[in-house]
């Protein structure tokens, strides 16, 4: 990866932020070379406004969008649908991915081959009508730009496409958050969250504590 400036002098500001964006993106992927990591982390520690400036550039949004679910080939979707629709395989499939999911190719060629073999067998057994997974439910969700969770959920609800086997619905949309509601006072909320953090499992508990000390509870930092 190179961070060589490009463009003429009139693009200088954009170019510099591009370089910064690329560096932070690489940093967040753990792919920044050690010497550049050291420099960037020093800069992050030195320039407290850097995170806010980066936020203004929507850098994080760009970084995170890069992490979105990658669209799968149509054949893979049909394979998943066929596997999920077959009752004999449903129990086993419950513990396995049904969607394009979070990981890039998981167990390599062998697993892909096994799915393909199963798919051939299953497709030959021709699942009955009404038991297939709707392909629309398996289609990749369109990426939405804002990362704020509430916005994401409010915009399209939380779509789930995981069934429990035959007979049960395999797709539903949980209700969106009702906007009519008030807001819990911050001090009261902090007390609840502190009490809750003591009962959370380590990973989630740490995450809750991180948010307690993070700045985000105070709202967006104004752009400078």
């Amino acid at each position, binding site marked *: 990866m190179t961070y060589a400036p490009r463009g003429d002098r009139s693009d200088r500001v954009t170019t510099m932020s591009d370089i910064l964006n690329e560096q932070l993106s690489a*940093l967040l992927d*753990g792919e920044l070379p050690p010497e550049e990591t050291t420099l960037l*982390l020093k800069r*992050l520690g030195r320039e407290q406004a850097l*995170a806010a400036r980066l936020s203004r550039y*929507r850098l*994080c*949004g760009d970084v*995170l969008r890069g992490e*979105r679910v990658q669209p799968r080939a149509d054949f893979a979707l049909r394979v998943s649908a066929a596997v999920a629709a077959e009752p004999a395989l449903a129990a086993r499939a419950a*513990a396995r*991915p049904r969607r394009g*999911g*979070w*990981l*890039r*190719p*998981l*167990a*390599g060629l062998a697993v892909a081959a*096994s799915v393909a*073999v*199963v798919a051939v*067998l299953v497709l030959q057994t021709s699942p009955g009508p009404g038991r297939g997974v709707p392909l629309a439910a398996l289609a990749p969700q369109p990426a939405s730009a*804002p*990362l704020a969770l509430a916005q994401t*959920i409010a915009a399209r*609800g*939380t*779509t789930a496409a*995981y069934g429990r086997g035959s007979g049960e*619905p395999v797709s539903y*949309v*949980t209700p*969106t958050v009702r906007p009519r509601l008030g*807001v*819990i006072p911050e001090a009261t*909320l*902090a007390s*609840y969250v*502190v*009490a*809750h953090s003591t*009962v*959370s*499992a380590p*990973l*989630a508990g*740490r*995450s*809750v*504590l*991180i*948010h307690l*000390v*993070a*700045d*985000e*509870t105070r709202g967006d*930092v104004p752009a400078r």
Partner: protein
Amino acid sequence: MSERASRAALLRGWLLCSLALVALPALADDEARQWLAAMHEALATRTYQGEFLHLANGRVEKLRIFHRVKDGRVSERLVNLSGNGREVIRNDGELQCYLPDEHKVLVKSQADSGALLGTLPAFDATLEASYGLELGERALVFGRPARVLAIRPHDGYRFGYRLWIDEENKMPVRTDLCDADGVMLEQVLFTSLKVGGTLADAAFRPDVDATAFAWERQAGSAQNAPADELPWRLVQLPPGFRVSSSVEQRLPGSSRPVTHLVLSDGLATVSVFIEEPPAPPRQATEGQGRVGSAFAYSMVVAGHQVTAVGEVPPQTVEFIAEGVAPAKPGRLGFGRAAAMPGPQPQ
């Protein structure tokens, strides 16, 4: 060989081949479970210190963590290096949250200092009803080999994780919190991490001088309150969630006793707080709250303030809070709570 016999042999070959290949993901699942267990053991038992970036809502913050396990006791200190000076220190059963920007310290005594060690998720059949586990490819994080592990929720009632687990020390050097669609909500990335060695007591003292701050302490200690004996019940729960414990306690800054119910699906935890109505001039709260990826929903039920908090989607805390109801005479409480089906398909 007759045509029929050769067809049969071919079919047998296909079946054997497919069975062998189908078995591979099952083996991979076992390996994934082992990685998850090793990670949780490392998190719970190792002493470590490091710095990490926390990325959420388009913001990046830099934090430092000190974590010590000594003679079975856990000490932890989390410091925000990005400017606000906030710190959380967990030491021998007490949690102190220093908020210099608010000139305040929240103090919460834990009923059981070993409680956190006791709530390690186990990837068993209960958990598998709600999550899928996938072991991914090998990846490098700052030049160190790590294994990628995905914990995927089966529905929209919970979040999942993508974990990059260091192959050598089994620590999660990168953690992505994701929703049911795999959209990342938050990321924790260690930029430096030292596992092992010792940490002095001084590492667990705050940088800030908090003597002039307002200290909001929890009064008294928590007492177990068997769920079946409580005058409340849950008429609906999202699939997979169960009541795991219930205590009577007081929250920081409050003198009123609070019933604290803990619900878990094996990985995610939701707290339900039930309080007597606040004394005037304070008013009951009805609404939502959010601290990072932890959501809260508060409402009034039978004159009591009911609040559900957890690192789960907002719909989940709302669904749980709305399921709290006074126990009818003769009916048992939370122990009989039924897991209701979620919203119907649309």
